């Protein structure tokens, strides 16, 4: 059982969830105390250069992809609801870097970034957002329902908390089939107030299921702050109620996310045990593109942006001579081109054939 402290503040202040020898952070580990930090650097050790570069590349790709989504949405190219991942990239990228291709990911509707991190080509994601036939869900799911069986990305799900029992079931299947495949199940902190969360954690520990529950605590359920919605705001501590191992992680630190997930994956693969990870993070954009954001101040957003996950990781990589300025410019250009390519692909992909309206309702008549 990891980190079962009862004092929420004590845990945050003692940097629990950070990895000794891998990351050495500023005094406080929680982004909600970022204003008290004088040193916002992270130190990079014990990871190979390719891994580090790849993590940075993915975060940058997702950031630029999401910025392009906002642009396309405002041009009317993307319809419906569109929930962007900007600010939270370290959580999905760090966690997904810790699993294999045959492991499962199931998540919420804020999933473009996780879909790309799991291996869905940005082209197929953008085409889905454009409602095109070459989208990863063939234009039937849209922004909130990205799926790709070939990379074991089992969906964006759009009822808050609905994916938590599904992830539990994926883990159940791994155990039933006696494979060592693990499941990462992502959800926001608002989902923790749903019964689905509690019912799932209870079953997962009762039946020892290899599911890793990752709560992306971005502090707001739509426009309602954590303080207004949750009696016990320490999400990780809720694992105690089910005797599940838990960790509190700085979700702005991609390596902390990776290392915490690696530990949970080991527990899941080797001992078939679940873990709850609470990743403190922050979304810079609105809940969805239609959110005017009246419930928080510009100053608050800027405070969190000081510990922007891409900014602090870039600084660490430069300090450790992993990336030069030139490498970064090259990566920026590469990412820009890939996003342009995704848009071009989406623009050129045909709309779904009208006959597709009535396909995929039943697997057999």
């Amino acid at each position, binding site marked *: 059982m990891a980190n079962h402290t009862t004092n929420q503040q004590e845990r945050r202040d003692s940097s629990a969830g950070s990895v000794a020898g891998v990351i050495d952070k500023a005094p406080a580990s929680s982004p909600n105390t970022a204003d008290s930090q004088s040193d916002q650097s992270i130190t990079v050790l014990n990871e190979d250069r390719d891994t580090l570069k790849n993590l940075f590349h993915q975060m940058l790709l997702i950031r630029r992809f999401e910025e392009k989504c906002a642009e396309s949405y405002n041009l009317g190219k993307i319809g419906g609801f569109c929930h962007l991942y900007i600010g939270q990239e370290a959580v999905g990228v760090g966690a997904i870097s810790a699993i294999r291709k045959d492991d*499962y990911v*199931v998540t919420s509707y804020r999933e473009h970034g996780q879909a790309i991190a799991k291996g869905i080509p940005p082209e197929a994601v953008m085409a889905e957002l454009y409602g095109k036939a070459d*989208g*990863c*869900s*063939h*234009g*039937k*799911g849209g922004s909130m*329902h990205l*799926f*790709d*069986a070939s990379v074991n990305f*089992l*969906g964006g*799900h759009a*009822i808050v908390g*609905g994916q*938590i*029992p*599904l*992830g*539990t*079931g*994926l*883990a*159940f*299947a*791994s155990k*039933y*089939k006696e494979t060592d495949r693990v499941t990462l199940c992502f959800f926001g902190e608002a989902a923790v107030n749903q*019964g*689905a969360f509690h*019912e*799932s954690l*209870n*079953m997962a520990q*009762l039946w020892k299921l290899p599911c890793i529950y990752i709560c992306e605590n971005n502090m707001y359920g739509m426009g309602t702050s954590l303080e207004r919605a949750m009696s016990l705001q320490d999400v990780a501590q809720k694992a105690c109620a089910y005797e599940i191992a838990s960790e509190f992680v700085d979700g702005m630190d991609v390596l902390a996310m990776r290392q915490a997930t690696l530990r949970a994956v080991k527990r899941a693969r080797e001992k078939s045990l679940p873990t709850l990870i609470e990743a403190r993070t922050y979304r810079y954009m609105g809940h969805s593109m239609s959110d005017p954001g009246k419930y928080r101040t510009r100053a608050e957003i800027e405070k969190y942006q000081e510990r922007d996950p891409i900014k602090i990781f870039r600084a660490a990589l430069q300090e450790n001579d992993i990336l030069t300025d030139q490498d970064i410019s090259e990566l920026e250009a590469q990412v820009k081109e890939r996003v342009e390519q995704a848009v071009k692909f989406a623009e050129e992909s045909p709309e779904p054939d009208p006959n597709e309206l009535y*396909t*995929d*309702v*039943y*697997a*057999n*008549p």
Partner: protein
Amino acid sequence: MAVLTMRDALNTALREELARDPDVFLMGEEVAEYQGAYKVTRGLLDEFGPKRIIDTPITELGFAGLGVGAAMAGLRPIIEFMTFNFSILATDQIINSAAKMLYMSGGQFKIPIVFRGPGGSAYQVSSQHSQALESWYAYFPGLKVVMPSTPADAKGLLKSAIRDDNPVIFIEQERMYGMKGEVPDDDNFVIPLGVAEVKREGTDATIVARSLMVPLALKAAEELDKDGVSCEVIDPRTIRPLDIDAIVGSVKKTSRVVIAEESHPFCGVGAEISAEINERAFDYLDAPVKRVSGADVPMPYAKNLENLALPGVEQIVAAVREVSYLD
């Protein structure tokens, strides 16, 4: 052919399908050690072990969703609701996950799952434990809904439901578990979903009945026969997909139709069947389509009130006489 109760016919179907396919597992409240609240799962734990016959906590949303997730990964779960009344807690997973997964994933994730258990009216258990929910589930494209009315149908349809690659809602009538009938022994005896059966042939009026209403309709037909009215009783057996062609075919033959159901009339399955008949066979009708439904009230406890809330043989007879202009 063996004579079995509905309960044992269902038990046989479960046993045969569990033996046939190792990816099939059964999960629900009291299904294993307690042997099933209604004993439908009796003996299965001993035969198949705790890995495949799984007692759950009282956590319907949780284990329904767990089943859907397991189905996404290729298993074929059978999720038992102790009664369908409790499935109401799980509707988010049944409707938003199971019914829509194949479609919203662009055909990538089929959900071969059966949600089964007793439904409809029971004996004096009042409003929350005595209700018919088939019209809820039948409303949603992506779900199939099955309601057997005989032990043989129960066996053949449940086996088909378990082998089907779609989510199937399988509603067993709580009052019918003890009903006996001949059941084929063949462990490959299956009845295709979506095929109605004429339970009694007739020429003067059609009675469309499902589940508990089928035996009542057959009794009504016998009584009407004494008055010289020959009734055809047709049981759709599957509510979705609905074998409307068979129903319309019968109506074209008899020109009069009564739809008997124990559910509420408003937005019910009978209303849908009536609309279909009006669209497809209006010119063949010699009288308006007539429904006999449960009272449009929550189920009361008192025995006399409960009897008043449910349609019986008398009401079906009266309805057929009405559409036949006999009174």
